[in-house]
């Protein structure tokens, strides 16, 4: 597993990509979930009782930052199928969507635009925010496992 990670992230471009994904996803989700405010002043805080939600955001961002570059590596370097890429993008997207609190501007825009359908979907994302995030983390973990396994095999078959 460590070897596979070394193969991918020894390439400077993939390390930069992973850092970029982690930072942008973490900051974006923390702003959406109101752990960070940028106006009128920059303030970061973790309200009491929201520590678990905060931890899930960090895990989700970390896993996305690992899995997405690994799958891009598979596509670019090994010219392999794009099948596993779907799982990582889907996991990241679903996990991120679950963080978009319906109280926030995103929820307001969706509800205002799509009416009751938008309200129902936002209510679902808000009501099941934690389980959806856990499911997204599970999906990313599975994709990570499958990617590492296939990279091991493929790298052995097609050594560079």
């Amino acid at each position, binding site marked *: 597993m460590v070897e596979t990670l070394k193969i991918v992230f020894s390439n400077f471009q993939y390390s930069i990509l992973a850092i970029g994904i982690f930072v942008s996803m973490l900051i974006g989700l923390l702003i959406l979930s109101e752990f960070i405010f940028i106006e009128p002043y920059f*303030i970061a805080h973790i309200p009491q009782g929201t520590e678990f939600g905060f931890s899930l955001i960090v895990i989700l961002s970390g896993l996305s930052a690992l899995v997405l570059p690994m799958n891009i590596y598979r596509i670019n370097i090994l010219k392999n199928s794009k099948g596993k890429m779907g799982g990582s993008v889907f996991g990241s997207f679903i996990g991120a969507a679950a963080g978009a609190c319906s109280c*926030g501007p995103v929820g307001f825009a969706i509800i205002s635009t799509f009416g009751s359908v938008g309200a129902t979907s936002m209510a679902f994302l808000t*009501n099941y925010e934690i389980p959806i995030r856990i499911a997204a983390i599970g999906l990313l973990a599975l994709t990570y496992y499958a990617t590492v396994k296939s990279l091991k095999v493929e790298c052995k078959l097609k050594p560079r």
Partner: protein
Amino acid sequence: MKKKGVIIGAIVAIITIGLIATYSSSTETVNLDMGRTHGDVSTAMGSPILGDPSAPITIVEFGDFQCHACYNWFHTHKPAIYEDYIATGKANLVFVDLAFLGRDSPIASQAAYCAEDQERYWDYHDLLYNSQEPKIDNGWANSESLKNFAFSLGLDMDLFESCLDSGKYSKRVQYNVSEAKKHNARATPTFIIVGPDDQQEQFQGGQPYSTFKKIMDNMI
């Protein structure tokens, strides 16, 4: 002559009863100040003022009773703001409904105004935020639950139920939502802090005490 007096008496009684009935069903019994504004925000249809009405600073909160961020702010940051600014007469607070999250949101807002009819708006407001459940529209704020909350506060249930069932304050809530949208409130809670010279600072989210302190200390 006696017969004539009875007829006149009956007519006067009928007119009086008619006037009372009309008046009680169509007029809000609260002291609405239709010209009440804070900065450029019309708060005429909003909540009663929490704190000293003549305080130099007014915090206008656009909120939804089903909003989790409002719930977090209510429990985590509002108590310190109340203690340091509202209770000391430095600031007051008005709640204006931006009830958009679910089908029960506008009804919850209307119920709070029905409680205002019995001069218990803030008790009812606080009870709703103390009773909020994590799931939107799961029934915790439906009509039946709202009546149970009123009962637990010891409100006159005949008055409360007739107020809620008649939708007496639905237009008031709609007005508040349109006022919120007019001021570009696109999230709950959104705050507008209005200072003594009508200077305004608007921001989104259930921001911590330190944000309010910085803004208000600069205004005083």
